[in-house]
């Protein structure tokens, strides 16, 4: 019927018109936003609308870098693994279940920026980006990268001067350490991440870079993997002068090396004979494993251990 078709056409036109008006209107309502584009450690170019007022950190090292540059007050939530500074421990926790966080918890904090590491699965990062929440992934592999990551954070949070101050402080400290130990012959070191199998740190890992900054020679440097398993025979052959045992391994005291059932193999190794074995407590282990402002303590501790005569 002709009347019916006409009715349909009219309705269609009205619907189209309304949608267009609403769209144009919404475009006009959007304010112009100032933003900054930075590149994170995964090479992702991220556009961050400014100013950044609410930050969620999904990893202790990011939390520490934020506080380090003086932007800690922007943090609204962190993780249950955060232990420094004490203010950070009082913040609401984004539920960290074995290294992953729930997107809902993050969104509930209404952040304008989320800081993550590669422990979080990429899907969570993608999900947040899709919800228009910018995510920066930081994973420094050595101290220089900590410096550049902190400078980036400084730019993003308008704390450039704070970042510069912290970076210079760290640089000076490290240089001081290096000059004190430079005249001594380098000490070979085994860093034990786990005893059986003997996981250690290799080239490309952050801890390995701390060791070399502290003037140590990592005996696992010939292995081409950041977290390799080193064979006992290599340890016997390389005969390290010092051993550092990370916290959380089953090896908690010197009896493992002197009287345990593996002891005959360790018997002739310098580090065991001279008792130059360092067992890290939880805090010290955190210094080694969490890149950030506290890394200077890590370098100091290792240098102190390797070259006690220098300090």
């Amino acid at each position, binding site marked *: 019927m002709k009347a019916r078709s006409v009715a349909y056409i009219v309705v269609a036109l009205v619907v189209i018109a309304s949608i267009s008006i609403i769209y144009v209107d919404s475009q006009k309502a959007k304010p112009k936003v100032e933003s900054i584009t930075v590149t994170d450690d995964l090479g992702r170019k991220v556009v961050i609308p400014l100013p950044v007022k609410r930050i969620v950190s999904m990893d202790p090292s990011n939390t520490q870098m934020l506080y380090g540059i003086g932007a800690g007050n922007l943090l609204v939530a962190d993780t249950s693994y955060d232990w420094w500074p004490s203010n950070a421990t009082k913040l609401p926790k984004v539920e960290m279940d*074995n*290294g992953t966080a729930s997107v809902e918890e993050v969104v509930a904090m209404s952040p304008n920026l989320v800081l993550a590491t590669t422990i979080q699965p990429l899907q969570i990062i993608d999900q947040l980006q899709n919800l228009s929440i910018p995510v920066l992934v930081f994973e420094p592999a050595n101290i220089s990268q900590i410096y550049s990551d902190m400078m980036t954070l400084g730019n993003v949070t308008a704390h450039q001067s704070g970042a510069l101050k912290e970076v210079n402080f760290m640089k000076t400290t490290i240089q001081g350490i290096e000059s004190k130990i430079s005249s001594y012959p380098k000490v070979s070191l085994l860093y034990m*991440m*786990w*005893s*059986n*199998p*003997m*996981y*250690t740190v*290799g080239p490309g890992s952050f801890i390995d870079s701390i060791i070399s900054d502290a003037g140590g020679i990592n005996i*696992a440097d010939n*292995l*081409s*993997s950041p*977290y*390799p*398993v*080193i*064979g*006992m*025979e*290599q340890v*016997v*052959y390389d*005969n390290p002068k010092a051993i550092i045992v990370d916290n*959380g391994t*089953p090896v908690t005291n010197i009896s493992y090396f002197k009287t345990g*059932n*593996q002891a*005959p*193999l360790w018997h*002739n190794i310098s580090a065991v004979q001279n008792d130059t074995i360092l067992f890290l407590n939880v805090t010290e282990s955190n210094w080694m494993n969490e890149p950030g402002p506290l890394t200077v303590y890590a370098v100091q501790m290792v240098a102190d251990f390797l070259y006690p005569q220098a300090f």
Partner: protein
Amino acid sequence: MKVSANIFVISLIFLTLFNILVSLSIGPVHIPLNQIVSNIVLYSLHHDTNWTISTILFYIRLPRIVLAVIIGMILGVSGLITQTIFKNPLGDPYLTGVSSGAAVGAAIGFLVSPFLVPVLAFIFAMVAVGISFLISRSDGEVNTEMLILAGVSVSFLFSAVASYIIYLKIYNLRGVLFWLLGGLYGATWSDDFYLFATLLFIFPLIIYFRRELDIMLMGDEQAKSLGVDTGKVKTITLISSSLVTSIAVSIVGIIGFIGLVSPHIGRKLVGESHRFLVFVSPLIGANILLVADTIARSTPQGEIPVGIVTAFIGSPVLIYLLYRRRKM
């Protein structure tokens, strides 16, 4: 046929000895052959030797090499028993639930205290096997069809439990992962002692039953009519095999493919009959595992789990054997 089979057995024994010597000279630390020989000579004459080299050779490499040989033999025997009793060419020693049970035990161990891993792995492996046997009992005699299904189901269940436990403390993932994929690191002479005793138990046992195993290939009904006490043979061999495999797994983790592939290669060499297969299968297992472990402990990335290497070696072999069987 009889003559050539004997030759195979003897050749394999020599191959194993040769393999041992070669593996002794390979490792992350390069020790020239002349040094190895002189060290061995001096050591056996009780003279002073270079401590570093002696320690590496006799306290690190040799116990590990011996362990590889023993475990390879155990898996070769277990795999053969499993394939024959279940009449399943894809049978492996873990079919009754050993591996998943052990995984639960190990996972709990890594959660609580890594020193408990071997004991817990063994206990839970036997628990899983026990449940499989209980589920599949019918009229007193072991029902092999039911037992396979029971073993698979129990494995699924225990794997799920193990995965969950591992997830609870995922920080320890590296230790657990290495164990799950199998590793002979940290092998000591006392490990060798216990496992050798285990081998001394299972090896004569399968030799004793080799006639019965041949006849049982023809099926329970025929075997019974020929006079074989099939119930007794099945129970004794399967339980022994599960027990022995559990002990092995508790010490070195889950090493795949050896138990599956060794009997097949053995059959290609000496035929179907268990008369020689009971010697050949374990010898082949020993050699494959020895080669795999030598590779596993000497990669440029450091040491990798041996289960990865056996998978790389085993799968092409398996594919090739199945392909040849198709063509027949």
